[in-house]
C-alpha cells in the first residue's frame, strides 16, 4: 500500500517535471514573503498579469503561448540560485530577478548558460556596456543614471549650483545601496557639494541613529537608496525629526504607495524618482481588468493594478514581450531560443507610437538598444507624494542624466570585470 503510494508519488513527480513543449517559458523570480515583499508583490503581479493578458487577448506572442514559472526567492540569494537552477531546465527565456544581490549571482551563470538577464533599473550598472556583458541588459535606466538625474534635478532647483550644499545619502547597506556612491562622489567633486554617507543594515527597520545624525548635521537634501520595509521606516523617521519632506528624495525603488502611506499625512511632499510614468487610466489596465482579472487569473489579489510598482512590473513584461516579438521577426520563428531572444533585445527599439499602440502611451521613454549600449538612455522623472489625495504627482518631465559623468565610470567598471573574468569585449 505504502509502496504503491510512493510509486504513484514518484510517477507524478516525473510527470510534473517533464517539460511542456513549444511555449515561451518566462520564469518570475518573485518575492511575496519577507521584509521586501511589499515591493516584490506588486511588481510580480504586474509582470505576470501582462503576460496573462497577452495569452488571453492575443493568444500569446506571435501565436506562441507564454508559460510563467513563478519561484519565490524571498530576496535571498541562496533561494535565488535554487530558483534559477530549478527553472532554467524548463527552457527559460529571460530572467528578471528584481534583486541586485541575485543579479550579481546570476550574471556569470546566465552568461555561461547563454540566457539573457534583464535587470531593469537595478543590478550591475556597468552591464550597460554590452560588449563586456553580452547577456545582461539593464535598459531603460540604471543606478548611476538615477544618481545623476537626482543631482541634475537639484541643480535645477538651486539655479545651477550646488556649491557648499550638504547632501546626505541614506542607503541600504548592500550591493544595491552602494551602487550610486561612486557616481555621487564624482558629482560631489564636480559640483562642490558635501556628501554624507549613512548606511542602513538589512532589513532596515532600525534607523534611529542615522536620522539622529541627519538631525544633528542638518543636510540640505537627503537622497535615499532604500527598498522594502526600509523605505517606510525612513519616511516615518524623517517625519519624526521634522525633516522637510520636499528635500527628501528617494530613488525609483523608494517611491511607491506602500512606502509613504504608513506615515500618513506626515509623508506629504516626499519626492522620488520614477523611470516610468504612472497613469491608472492607461487602456492596458482596462484590458488587464477585463481579460485577466475578471477571468479570475489575477496573479495576486488584483488590488495593485495601476500602482507604481505594478506599472513597472507590467512595463518590464512589455519590454520582454517586445524583445520576444522582435526576436521572432528577426529569426522568422515563433518558438524562439534564449540566444535568439538576446538578438531581439539587442536590437530593440521602443517608440512612443509603439507604446501608444500597446495601450500604454508614455509609460516609459522612447529608447533603443545596441550592442555597445545595453542601458537605454537613463531618463527619470521626479514625482511627489500628495498625501491628501493619496497619489503620486509627476513634477517634471524626463530628466537627462549626465553621461559625461556616468560613461567613464561604466567603462572603468566594465573593463575591471572583463579583466577579472578574461573576457575579450566584443559583440556577439
Amino acid at each position, binding site marked *: 500500500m505504502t509502496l504503491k503510494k510512493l510509486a504513484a508519488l514518484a510517477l507524478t513527480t516525473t510527470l510534473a517535471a517533464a517539460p511542456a513543449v513549444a511555449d515561451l517559458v518566462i520564469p518570475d523570480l518573485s518575492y511575496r514573503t519577507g521584509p521586501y515583499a511589499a515591493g516584490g508583490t506588486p511588481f510580480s503581479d504586474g509582470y505576470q498579469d501582462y503576460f496573462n493578458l497577452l495569452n488571453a487577448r492575443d493568444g500569446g506572442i506571435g501565436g506562441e503561448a507564454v508559460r510563467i514559472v513563478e519561484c*519565490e526567492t524571498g530576496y535571498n*540569494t541562496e533561494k535565488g540560485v535554487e530558483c534559477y537552477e*530549478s527553472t*532554467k531546465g524548463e527552457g527559460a527565456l529571460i530572467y528578471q530577478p528584481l534583486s541586485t544581490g541575485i543579479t550579481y549571482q546570476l550574471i556569470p551563470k546566465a552568461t555561461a548558460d547563454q540566457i539573457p538577464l534583464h535587470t531593469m533599473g537595478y543590478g550591475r550598472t556597468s552591464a550597460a556596456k554590452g560588449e563586456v556583458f553580452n547577456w545582461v541588459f539593464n535598459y531603460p535606466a540604471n543606478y548611476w543614471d538615477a544618481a545623476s538625474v537626482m543631482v541634475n534635478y537639484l541643480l535645477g532647483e538651486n539655479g545651477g549650483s550646488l556649491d557648499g550644499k550638504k547632501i546626505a545619502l541614506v542607503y541600504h547597506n548592500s550591493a544595491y545601496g552602494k551602487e550610486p556612491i561612486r557616481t555621487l562622489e564624482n558629482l560631489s567633486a564636480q559640483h562642490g557639494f558635501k556628501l554624507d554617507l549613512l548606511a542602513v543594515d538589512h532589513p532596515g527597520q532600525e534607523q534611529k541613529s542615522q536620522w539622529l545624525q541627519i538631525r544633528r548635521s542638518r543636510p540640505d537634501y537627503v537622497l535615499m537608496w532604500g527598498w522594502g520595509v526600509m523605505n517606510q521606516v525612513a519616511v516615518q523617521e524623517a517625519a519624526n525629526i521634522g525633516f522637510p519632506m520636499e528635500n527628501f528624495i528617494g530613488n525609483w525603488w523608494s517611491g511607491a504607495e506602500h512606502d509613504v502611506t504608513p506615515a500618513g499625512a506626515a509623508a506629504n511632499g516626499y519626492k522620488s524618482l520614477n523611470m516610468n510614468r504612472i497613469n491608472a487610466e492607461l487602456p492596458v489596465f482596462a484590458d488587464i481588468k477585463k481579460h485577466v482579472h475578471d477571468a479570475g487569473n489575477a496573479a495576486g489579489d488584483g488590488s495593485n493594478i495601476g500602482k507604481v510598482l505594478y506599472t513597472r512590473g507590467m512595463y518590464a513584461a512589455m519590454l520582454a514581450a517586445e524583445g520576444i516579438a522582435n526576436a521572432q521577426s528577426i529569426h522568422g520563428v515563433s518558438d524562439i531560443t534564449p540566444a535568439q531572444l538576446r538578438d531581439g533585445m539587442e536590437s530593440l527599439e521602443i517608440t512612443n507610437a509603439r507604446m501608444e499602440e500597446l495601450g500604454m502611451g508614455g509609460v516609459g521613454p522612447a529608447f533603443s538598444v545596441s550592442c555597445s549600449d545595453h542601458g537605454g538612455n537613463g531618463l527619470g522623472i521626479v514625482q511627489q507624494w500628495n498625501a491628501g489625495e493619496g497619489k503620486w504627482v509627476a513634477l517634471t518631465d524626463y530628466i537627462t542624466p549626465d553621461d559625461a559623468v556616468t560613461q567613464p565610470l561604466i567603462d572603468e567598471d566594465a573593463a575591471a570585470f572583463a579583466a577579472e573574468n578574461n573576457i575579450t569585449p566584443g559583440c556577439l
Partner: protein
Amino acid sequence: MFYREAGDFKTTYQEDSQTFPIKFDRWRYWAVLAVAYLFIPFVINDYWASAVFIPFLIYSIAAIGLNILTGYCGQVSLGTGGFMAVGAFACYKLMTAFPDVNIIFHIIISGGVTAAVGAAFGLPSLRIKGFYLAVATLAAQFFLVWLFNKVAWFYNYSASGQINAPERFVGNVAVTGPNADAWAKYLICLVFLTVCALIARNLTRGAIGRTWMAIRDMDIAAEIIGVNPLRAKLMAFAVSSFFIGVSGAMFFAIYLGAVEVGEAFGIQKSFLVLFMIIIGGLGSIFGSFAGAAFLVILPVALKLVGVDLLGFPTDLVSHFQLVIIGALIMFFLIKEPHGLAQLWRLAKEKLRLWPFPY
C-alpha cells in the same frame, strides 16, 4: 540478527576502539562512501548540486566545526556567520592576490586564517561562560560583518562591496566560476567534507577530545585533574573556526560564487548552523550531518511538494515552510532533546536486540 557484536572478534586494541564496532556499520559506511564517490557524481545535475548536495556538504562542515566548540567543548558560540565570512573573504583575497596557487591551498589557508581569528575571539572564554560568552561571540559576529562592509580593501575596492569568485581549476577541471561542472563542485566539497569529518572524529575521540569534554562537563574538575583550560578552550576555538572557515570559503567560492557579507553571513547564518547542531545532536559528528541534511533538504522538499506537485501559490508554500519547519523543530526538541543523533543511537540499540527484544 545481522546487526550485532557477537561473533565479530577483535584481537587488537586498535580494532577494539574503532569507530564502527559492528561489522554491518562498517559495511554501511563503505557503502555510503561508495555511493557518494562512485555513483552520485555521474548522475548529478546543476539543480541537484546547487539546491541540495553542495549546500548540504558545506553546511555539514560548518556544523561539524560548531559542534566541536559547542557540542564537545561546551562553549556556546553565535559567531558562526562572522567566522564563515572570515573564511570567505580570506579565500577571496588569496584567490585574487595569488591566482597561480591552487584553490585547494587557498581554502585550507582560509581555514587557518579563520582559526587565528577564532582563537583571538575565544580569549574571553577563559573568563566568561555560558550566556555571557554567547554575547561575546555575538559581538564577534557583528564586528566581523561590519568590518568586511566598512574596509574596502577586503573586497578589493569594488563599487558594490560584492566579492566575486574568479574561475579556478584543480588539475584542468574548473571548480569555481560559472563554467564549473556540477560533478566537479560536488566532488571537491565531498573530499573536503570527508577529510574534515575524519579529522574531527579522530580529534574528538582522542586525548584532545577528552580534554574538551572534561571542560564541557565540569571545568573546575577538569582543571583539578590536570587539563589546561587555556590550551583546551583556545584549541577548541581554533579547530572549530578552522572548519567553519573552510566551509565559509567553499560557501563563497564554490557554492554561491558572489557574496555580499551582510546578506550571506548575517546573524541568521549563525542561528541556522546552531539549529543544525541542536536538531542533529550536540556532541556527535553524525548529528552534524543529520542536522545539516534536515535544514537544507526539508525546505527544498517542501517546495517541491507544495509548488511543483500540489500547485499551491509560492508565497503560501514559503509561509508554510516556516510553520512546518518551526513545528518540526519544536516536535523534535520535545520528543528527543538530544537530537536526531540520539534517535539514531536508539534505533541502533533496538536493532541489536531485534528480533528478540526480551
